[in-house]
């Protein structure tokens, strides 16, 4: 019996991972920056949703619209104040900078919301029958919105003029600039978009999972695992790997216990790193 339940649970979780990983991927593609602060944007998204909906009684859809704007602003500020100055710096400096920003954001979140866990009960309650399995509405909505947004962003990248500009900047920044694409605009826009996606993932997980300021690091490593398994810079890779890893985590956790289950993801990531560092569908790092 539990197999279909586990599979569905895993896929639902994977949708959130997909949204996180696509944001990370977007920023990595254009900036060649691994954003260590991405998880904190998620945590801030989740916690501000709890405050907005739980504290100030906003409707949930308002949080879905407002919170990504907030995290986009934080992301934009991060880029303007710090990362813009490090475009030509060695990679170790950008890694250290985003790592430092992540600790600053964790600390800011602890000062704002306190260190404890916060839940958001009473939002999107109820459940529906899906293939003979009871699925809670909040998880289903989270999955659909997350996967829908990831696919929409992928569509934008593939089909629109802006998407072409983003792809050309990530493939060959010099040639993109010669062709009249504003590098600065594209970088600003992708950073804001990536940060907004992290914030949205936070909003979506707030009704289901308890959120705390340390949430970011735990989730970030899973998103890292996703983009490494899927391949850095690859959208279809990230979405497929996210769903796969969601299933691995839930199924593995059922059979080996939750602690080892979440370690399974990293072990899978390490295995992929060693066997095929570019990931299943990756483009590889430009040095």
């Amino acid at each position, binding site marked *: 019996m539990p197999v279909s339940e586990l599979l569905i649970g895993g896929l639902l979780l994977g949708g959130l991972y997909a949204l996180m990983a696509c944001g990370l991927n977007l920023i990595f593609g254009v900036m060649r920056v691994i954003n260590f602060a991405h998880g904190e944007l998620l945590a801030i998204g989740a916690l501000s949703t709890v405050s907005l909906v739980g504290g100030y009684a906003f409707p949930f859809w308002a949080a879905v619209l407002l919170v990504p704007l907030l995290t986009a602003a934080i992301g934009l500020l991060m880029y303007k104040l710090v990362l813009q100055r490090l475009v030509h710096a060695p*990679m170790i400096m950008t890694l*250290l900078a985003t*790592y430092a920003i992540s600790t*600053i954001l964790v600390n800011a979140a602890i000062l704002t919301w306190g260190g404890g866990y916060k839940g958001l009960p009473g939002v999107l309650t109820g459940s529906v029958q899906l293939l003979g399995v009871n699925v809670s509405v909040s998880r289903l909505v989270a999955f659909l919105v997350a996967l829908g947004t990831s696919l929409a962003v992928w569509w934008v990248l593939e089909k629109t003029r802006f998407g072409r500009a983003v792809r050309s900047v990530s493939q060959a920044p010099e040639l993109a600039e010669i062709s009249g694409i504003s590098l600065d605009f594209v970088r600003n826009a992708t950073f804001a978009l990536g940060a907004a996606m992290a914030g949205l993932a936070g909003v979506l997980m707030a009704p289901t999972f308890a959120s705390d300021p340390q949430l970011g690091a735990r989730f970030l490593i899973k998103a890292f695992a996703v983009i490494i398994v899927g391949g850095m810079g690859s959208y279809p890779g990230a979405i497929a790997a996210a769903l796969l890893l969601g299933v691995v985590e839930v199924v593995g956790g059922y059979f080996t216990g939750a602690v080892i289950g979440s370690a399974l993801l990293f072990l899978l990531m390490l295995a992929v790193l*060693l066997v095929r560092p570019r990931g299943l569908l990756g483009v590889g790092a430009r040095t």
Partner: protein
Amino acid sequence: MKTLAILLAAGFLALTVPFWGTDYAVSFTIQMLVFMILAYSWNLIGGYTGYTHFGQVCFFGVGGYTGALLVTKLGIAWYFAVPLAALMGVLLAVPLGMAMLRLKGPYFAIGMFGLARVLESFVLGFDSLTQGGTGLYLTPLSNLKPVYFTLVVLALVMMIATWRLDNSRLGLKLLAIREDEQAAEALGVRTTRLKVGTFVVSAIAPAAVGALYAAYLGFIDPPTAFSPVMELTTIAIVLLGGMGTVFGPLVGAVVLSVINELLWARFPEGYLAIVGTLILLAVLFMPRGIVNLAMKKGWLPAGRGLLRQLAREDGRAPPKPAPPLADDVKRVQA
């Protein structure tokens, strides 16, 4: 000469803290020494070889747990447990280095960052052995002096080793890997072997210090053993002092420990943000660290570090003209 005298005096004072200092001074110096040793180890792989290493805390934690388990389960004295913990660090680092160092740049950083979390969840998961989140409790030490002097000796060893490295062909080879790994390989530097070697060497001291720290604190739990704050502080020290320099970790450890003590007492709730801001400022405005700044301003004799930097900044600059002969003659006569 004056600088040397001041340094020697400071070194002597640090050496004798347990004889004249208060308990507070001793614990402050122990913390500082722990960070100094971690920073010197990180400097080998992060500063010289140029690999962003977010997983040093893996070895610290493994050493800490090895030491604590040996002491609590087998009843071994801590001074035997410490070398065994260091050995454990080596045993872990050899296969790990051979595997992980095939990865470069961001992949290596993420792999090691993830590994620390894997180890932490394993320690939490195997709670029949490690007591999970409760942690292991050791009998508190009545006398801190042996721990203190072990740390002093370790710090000195790391310092001398780094100094020897900086003045050797080996050090130049590691720097060549940092600047351009492919070019180094093309010039006949055995990059893989050197990288794995450096990685393993840089794991020894953290594992030993982990065991010492567990003995000093009297307990160890997963958040202490695999603490991201520990990792971050270590990197901040090296960055602040100067990556790939002999004095960098020393200067950085002293400066950051003092800043820590001042701030920790007043704003414990904002500690992480303050360290983060320090790293950010250092990355933006002083990426070469205090030691390189001091060399540039002439407060410290310019070691090879500075020459290296000049060479890179302008390869074709003509050599500085020698002072006119007349000046030399005057100096001799005076």
